[in-house]
């Protein structure tokens, strides 16, 4: 046995280098390819023989580092890059990635981690108020896996990792985006490095449709995995935009009025964003309006594609892309027309759609909280001077208890401004609720919804009005919608707790109570029994 052992050692030592080197190269190359397609499991399997090897080559350590990074294990990833760079300190790309990994590790140090009961979703978040997001994230991503995954033929083989960051600055630290790019394009969520990255709605002045954004990123995740990362940006974003509300169980897909307005404007002025301009990322477009227009365009492309080839056709296109076809080839093959003809046909479809202009509509922009920033109900966004003055007078009166007079002033403002500024209606509704006139409050608020479906205060007051009218289900629906935009308003949870109790729904009541405790800082950092706290 001893002899054999010696022979064996000799064999390894004498014959292995060339064969061993080739084997390593193959493994590294396999892992790289798998990682490009975000197939982390395959990459890990390819590198498995070397994961415990003490004297491995720099390339192996770097590849393992990347796998760890994609698995969300930032401390291990950093250590592995250190190991690789010790051997080859001049490797600039590794250095850059290590910096990103380190920054991500630092940012997420102390984050809590929670898994869904079926282990398909993992959420990481900063302890504190962001804990209220967790159950909603788990529900939404679960639903997205079911609905969107079902539509695209995707079943995740590893848990979907979601990280929630407290501010755009944090997002900039863990992504290739700069703060400036985040602000100008309004990009607050990303799907990159095999995970969904989300800025907490807490960082925004009025919140944002953060669950739809999360689902949007999940579409990217699914598309990347299904196509093995071969889909061009325009189609990627088109599918994501088209499918972002699908997690709600609805198949109705509509453009937001502000997006419709931008599209109509772009068409009239002949200024649409080209597919090429969308590359490499929508986040790199020069403004929030440009990004919104681009999204509106690609939404209609996918909508048109869907009308022509159905979901199965879309799945087929993704498969062709995975097989190495170009977007033009894949679309030609499935739609049975040349790509140029397809584009022309889409343009005609677009014109037939006749997107409407909504003059005076104020685009629902992403506004980050900043020092000296406006308040969420700042009246300065009301550009019509007299309407702004009257609303302000209404506020002064309301604050002094003259509710009836306040209502008169808000109504005067509304007559001038029409439905252009939802802030007036929410203030009117608030005063009407104070006067116990909930029916009128509902009327005022519902009038704003077609143009401004993303104004959280509308849903909060709508919920209060329905609650006052005794319409429990509608009230719950409105409050839940408010939470999908800004889940940090304790009044909403107070009302939900009351409503669920009224409905004799102890689970719903408990969830509301728990969120309330989180927001009041009464629950500590551990409301959802997290499994892990990431190492500091």
């Amino acid at each position: 046995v001893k002899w054999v052992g010696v022979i064996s050692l000799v064999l390894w030592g004498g014959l292995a280098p060339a064969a061993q080197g080739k084997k390593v190269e193959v493994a590294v190359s396999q892992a790289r390819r798998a990682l490009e397609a975000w197939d982390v499991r395959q990459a890990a399997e390819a590198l498995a023989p070397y994961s415990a090897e003490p004297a491995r080559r720099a390339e192996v350590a770097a590849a393992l580092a990347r796998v760890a990074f994609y698995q969300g294990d930032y401390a291990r990833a950093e250590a592995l890059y250190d190991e690789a760079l010790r051997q080859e300190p001049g490797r600039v790309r590794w250095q850059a990635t290590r910096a990103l990994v380190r920054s991500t590790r630092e940012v997420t140090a102390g984050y809590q981690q929670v898994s869904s009961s079926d282990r398909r979703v993992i959420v990481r978040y900063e302890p504190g108020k962001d804990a209220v997001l967790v159950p909603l994230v788990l529900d939404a991503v679960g639903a997205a896996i079911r609905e969107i995954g079902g539509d695209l033929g995707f079943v995740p083989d590893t848990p979907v990792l979601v990280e929630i960051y407290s501010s755009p600055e944090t997002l900039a630290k863990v992504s290739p985006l700069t703060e400036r790019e985040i602000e100008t394009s309004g990009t607050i969520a990303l799907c990159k490095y095999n995970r969904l990255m989300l800025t907490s709605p807490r960082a925004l002045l009025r919140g944002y449709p953060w669950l739809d954004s999360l689902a949007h990123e999940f579409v990217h995740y699914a598309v990347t995995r299904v196509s093995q990362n071969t889909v061009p940006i325009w189609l990627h974003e088109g599918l994501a935009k088209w499918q972002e509300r699908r997690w709600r169980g609805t198949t109705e897909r509509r453009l937001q009025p502000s997006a419709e307005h931008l599209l109509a404007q772009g068409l009239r002025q002949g200024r649409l964003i080209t597919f090429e301009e969308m590359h490499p990322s929508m986040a790199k477009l020069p403004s929030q309006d440009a990004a919104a227009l681009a999204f509106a365009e690609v939404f209609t492309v996918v909508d048109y594609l869907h009308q022509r080839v159905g979901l199965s056709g879309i799945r087929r296109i993704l498969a062709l892309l995975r097989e190495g076809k170009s977007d033009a080839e894949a679309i030609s093959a499935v739609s049975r027309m040349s790509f140029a003809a397809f584009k022309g046909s889409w343009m005609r479809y677009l014109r037939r759609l006749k997107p409407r202009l909504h003059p005076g509509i104020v685009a629902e922009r992403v506004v980050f909280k900043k020092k000296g920033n406006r308040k969420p109900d700042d009246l300065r966004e009301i550009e019509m001077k007299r309407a702004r003055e009257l609303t302000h007078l209404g506020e002064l009166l309301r604050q002094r208890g003259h509710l009836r007079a306040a209502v008169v002033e808000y109504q005067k403002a509304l007559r001038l401004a029409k439905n252009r500024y939802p802030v007036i209606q929410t203030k009117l509704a608030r005063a009407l609720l104070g006067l116990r006139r909930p029916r009128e409050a509902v009327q005022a608020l519902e009038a704003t919804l077609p143009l401004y479906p993303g104004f959280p205060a509308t849903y909060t007051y709508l919920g209060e009005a329905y609650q006052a009218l005794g319409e429990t289900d509608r009230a719950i629906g409105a409050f839940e919608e408010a939470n999908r935009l800004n889940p940090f308003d304790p009044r909403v949870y107070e009302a939900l707790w009351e409503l669920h109790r009224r409905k004799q729904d102890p689970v719903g009541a408990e969830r509301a109570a728990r969120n309330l405790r989180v927001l009041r800082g009464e629950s500590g950092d551990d409301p959802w029994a997290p499994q892990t706290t990431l190492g500091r």
Partner: protein
Amino acid sequence: VESTSGEISAVKGTVVQIGARATIPVSKADVRVGDEVIPLKVLGQSLEGALSIVDSGTYQFVLTDEDGKARVGSPPMRIQAETDHPPRVRIVAPGPEVVVGERGRVEVSFAAADDFGLRDLWLVFRVEGGSEAQKEKTRLLKVLEGSPRVSEGAVTLSVFDLGWRPGERVAYRLRVHDNDVVSGPKRGESAVQHLKVYSPRERYLELLEEQKRVWDGMVHLLGEEIVLGEEAEGQGARALARAEEQARVAGTRSGEVRTRLEAVIAQVSEDRMSSERARSALEGVRRRLRARAARAAQWLAGSVGGAATRLQDLASFMPRLVAGMEDDVLLLEKLYKQQKLEALKVLTGELLESHRRLKDLLETYRRTRDPELKAELEREISRLQEKLRELRAKLAELFDVDDEFVNLDAAKAAEMQKTLGRMREALRKGDLDGALRELERMAKELQSTLEGVDLSSKAFYESAFFKSQKKMEKILDEVHEMEGAERELARETREVEGQARRRVGQELDVAKSERARRIQKRLEGVQREASEAKSLLQSRWNQELADRGATRAGEAAQALGQGDAAEALDMAQRGLQDLQQLRENLSRQRPWQMEPSGERSERAGERAREAAGSLEEAVRALDRLLPRASERLTEAERQRLGDLGRHQRRLRDRAGRLKRQAAEAGEEMPFFGDEARQSLDEAHDQMGRAEAELGRSKPREAASREDQAADALGRVKDKLQQALKPQGGPGGRDRGAEEGERGGSLSREKVKIPGAEEYRAPKEFREDLLKAMKQAVPPPYRDLVRRYYEELVR
């Protein structure tokens, strides 16, 4: 202590001279007090000595006879050591709290007493509030010579010398010491009183807060009026009853707001830092508020028609009323914000000044190393810190109000606090260069803050009042142009009058008239009498009046001699005004009058009365002699006057348009104040009168009216210019005094706070003034006389 019984009763520390006669020849004599033996001087049988009273007890003489034998020379006699009470001092005047200007002085009257004797009087004070409780300080005010047992008098405290600053409240008291050298000097203190150093800025801020309260009241009133407007939409008797009730509620509220607003306007008018703009705007709000209240009251008082008619009537004017109210609420809010920014500017300016003072102190300290200066430096740093704190608070408040216009943030003020902290530390370590470096850094920060505030203030003004500013500028241009046109009109009217007058004079050939010669003589007499009066008078003012009277009488006589009766009349009338004024001045026999009483003054008065009476006669005679120019106008002159009348009408129409524009614009031109409005009314009115006089071919009267119209326009112009003047800070009305030296406009005169008994004389004095002011004054002197009285009471 004189005593024959031998018993001594005296305050501790008293030295008692002892004189005694021994009945036997003695070689030595002592006084025994307890265990102490005090030797006495023996002069034959007379014994002399002194004993200090330390405590109660007894004393006894001990005599040694010539044989050297000691024996008790007297029974024990009682010493009663009385307790020395601490001295007492009381502040007689001023009252418990007094406000003084930063360069002012306060006379503090005191009464002190002690059973032993008073030694000195001290001031004990502490500046209240501030960043850290300041230490109590003392200052010797007076050494009471001769150790009086009772002392009454007054000491003067100089706010400047004591280093007290505007805005500071000082707790002070007087302290006296007695001169008890035995058990040590005792002290007594008065009750604590307070002295507040007047701070124009604080006063301004208080006024701003009061304006805010008015604004708040206006918002409530708006609420009531909107509801009243709603009630007007109802139907039937019950709706009417509700509306009437609501009108009453609104009426009461309106009355309260108006009262408050009146008070604010009165205070703003007196406040040096408040701007003309603010006053004008507030006056406008008051005027409109009054008009709206009157309209609502009129409706409430009415009873004609049924419920429907009355509600209809109400509904017909309520929307306009509410709209006006809305605008005024918004205007007051903007005005408040603007003034707040201006106040911030002043505060920053004060910081810079404080900084300069600190720098001077630091440099002097570097040279002299005077420890007292170091203490002063510490104090100045504390002051600056306190001001910075205030700045931070104000900035935070403003951020809340309107961050759009605040281009700076409280962080800067916080940074300055840190700089100041580092400076204090450097000073503590004796690193004076380091301290100076920090100070320099702070100067830069302050300067940029000041610029930021200035920019914000301008930006806010532009955004809030741009339109009204432009409108007002347009009106100002028009008023300016009209004033010029009116003056030109008066000049041309006078030209016509002059031509006619000269012609009449020539036609009369008065030089040859007997009547004219008599008048001329009388005029020469007046000249002599007035000159004589002048030589007897002592007040320069009165001398000038007599001199002018004499000169003009002489010139009148001369003109008459040359045949120019019109010129003579003119001169005589002017001279008469002077002499009448002089007569008036001398007729009052009051102690405060300008001439001392006595025979000389009486003679002067006599001459003045004679001269004035004589000149009155001369004027009447001249008037009779001279036919009125208007009666002798040529056709061409009448025509020209007609043309001028038409020109006047056009100008009057323009003034009318302007008047309407100003009235209608209301809150759109918030700075068109009441005074400007009244002057515009007056100009319009005088133009109408001038036009009528021109129509009647009375050029002299017309020219006078035209002058008055032009003067009124001039006043409108002045007011508008003041309101439009870019403000470098609050105090648009009194910048000059502030530029060089902040608060320099405050009186530095000694402020005597009169005691209770001292009130009588000034009261009589004021009554005299009031009576005197009621007496008639010739129109051209009204202003002069008014100023004179103002000077007297100032």
